[in-house]
C-alpha cells in the first residue's frame, strides 16, 4: 500500500477522529473524491453524504456528514463537518419513525418559525435516509 494519509474528522464540538488511514472517500460539492496519501492540496465544500474511511485490515467505516468542507494539505486530510453521524449507529426502522414524527411536526406547526425548524429536521432526516 502507498503512504498513509493523516485523516482528521472534526465537528464544531470536538475532534471525532484523528488517525492514519489508507483512503477516504469524500462527498465533495462537485462529486465524490477518493483521497489517498500524497494527494495534491485541495479545498472543497461538502455536500450531504457519506464519508468512507478505509484502513488496511479493518472494515470500512462510514459516516454521514452534512455542512462543512474538506481541506487537503501536505499534512493530510481534514474534514470539517457540522453534523456527523456514524452510519453504524443508524437504525433504519428508528429513522423511519423519526421521519414520520418530523412530518407530523411540519403538518402541526402553528407558527412559521416552528414550521421552518420542523422542516429543517425533516430535510436532515431525509438526507440521512438517502445515505443509508
Amino acid at each position: 500500500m502507498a503512504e498513509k494519509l493523516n485523516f482528521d474528522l472534526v465537528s464544531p464540538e470536538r475532534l471525532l477522529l484523528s488517525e492514519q488511514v489508507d483512503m477516504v472517500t469524500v462527498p465533495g460539492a462537485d462529486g465524490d473524491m477518493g483521497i489517498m496519501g500524497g494527494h495534491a492540496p485541495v479545498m472543497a465544500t461538502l455536500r450531504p453524504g457519506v464519508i468512507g474511511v478505509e484502513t488496511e485490515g479493518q472494515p470500512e467505516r462510514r459516516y454521514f456528514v452534512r455542512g462543512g468542507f474538506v481541506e487537503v494539505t501536505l499534512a493530510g486530510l481534514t474534514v470539517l463537518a457540522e453534523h456527523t453521524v456514524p452510519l453504524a449507529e443508524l437504525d433504519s426502522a428508528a429513522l423511519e419513525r423519526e421521519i414520520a414524527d418530523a412530518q407530523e411536526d411540519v403538518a402541526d406547526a402553528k407558527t412559521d418559525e416552528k414550521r421552518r425548524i420542523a422542516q429543517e429536521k425533516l430535510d436532515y432526516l431525509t438526507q440521512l435516509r438517502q445515505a443509508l
Partner: protein
Amino acid sequence: MASLKDLRNRIASVKATQKITKAMQMVAAAKLRRAQDAAEAARPYAERMDRVLANLSTGMAGRDDAPALLAGTGSDQVHLVIVATADRGLCGGFNSSIARLARQRIVKLIGEGKTVKIVTVGRKGRDTLKRDFGDRIVKSFEFTGIRQIGFAQAEEIARTVLDMFEAGEFDVATLFYSKFVNVVSQIPTTQQLVPASVAALDAEGADLGGAIYEYEPDEGEILKELLPRNLAVQIFRALLENVAGEFGAKMSAMDNATRNAGDMIKKLNITYNRSRSRAFSSPVDWPDGSENAARQKSNVPHGKMKERT
C-alpha cells in the same frame, strides 16, 4: 442588643447560608471543568476554520465581488448588537460587566446618530438591557432548559442573524461576550461578526510546500458557503467562553460568600458568648472590671436572667 435566642437564630441562619454557598461553589467548580473541556474540544474546528478563511479572504480582499459578509454592505448606519450573557445570576459581576460594556457601546452609537438593534442571548443580559433599551431589543434567546450548550444553539442564533442580514436589516454586527482568562478573571470583549473582522482571521496559512490549492467549486463559491458557517462557529466559541466564564465567576463569588459567612459566624459567636457570660455571671465579677454592680445588674434585662435556668 439582640437577645441570646436571636443571636442563636442568626448564627444558625448564617451557617445554613454558608452551607448553600459552599455547595454552589463546588457545583460551579465541577461545571467549570466540563465547560473548559468543551471549549478545548471545540478549538480544532475553529482554528481550522480561521485558517481556511484567512487563506481565502486574502485572495478576495479588494475585489468587487467579495461577499457582503466579508466586505460589508458599504454602510454602517444600522448596528446589530448581540449581547451574550449567562442565564443565571449569583456569579459576581460577570453579567453586569458584559452588559455595561454593551451599554457603553450602544449609548455611543446612538449618540453618533446610528440605529441600534439588540439581540440578547441569555436571560440576565435581556433583563438588564430591557430597562434602558427595551424597544430596541429585536430578539432574545434563552437556554435555561439546556444542560450543556451545543453547536445547535449557536447555529440557531447565527441563522437569525443571517436572516436579518439578508433582509438588509443591519449593516454591522458586533458580539459582546466575556473572554475566559482564568477562574478569577473574565474579560468582557467585543467582536465584530459582520463584516467578518480581519483580526480574527489573522491566522497562519497551511504549509503547502509551494503548491497551491485546487478549489472545488471556485474560491468565491467556497467563501460564500463558509462565511455563514463561520458566523455560527464564532458565536459558538463565544458561548463556550461565556459558559466557562460564568462558572469561573460563580466559583469565586461563592468562595467569597462562603468566607464572608465564616467571618460572620465567628463574630456572632463571640458576641453570643460575651452576652451569655454576661447573663450568667454575678454582677460583681464583670469581665470588664466595672465596679458599679447595681447599675450593671439593672442593665441585664429581666428576660435574660431566665436563661440561667
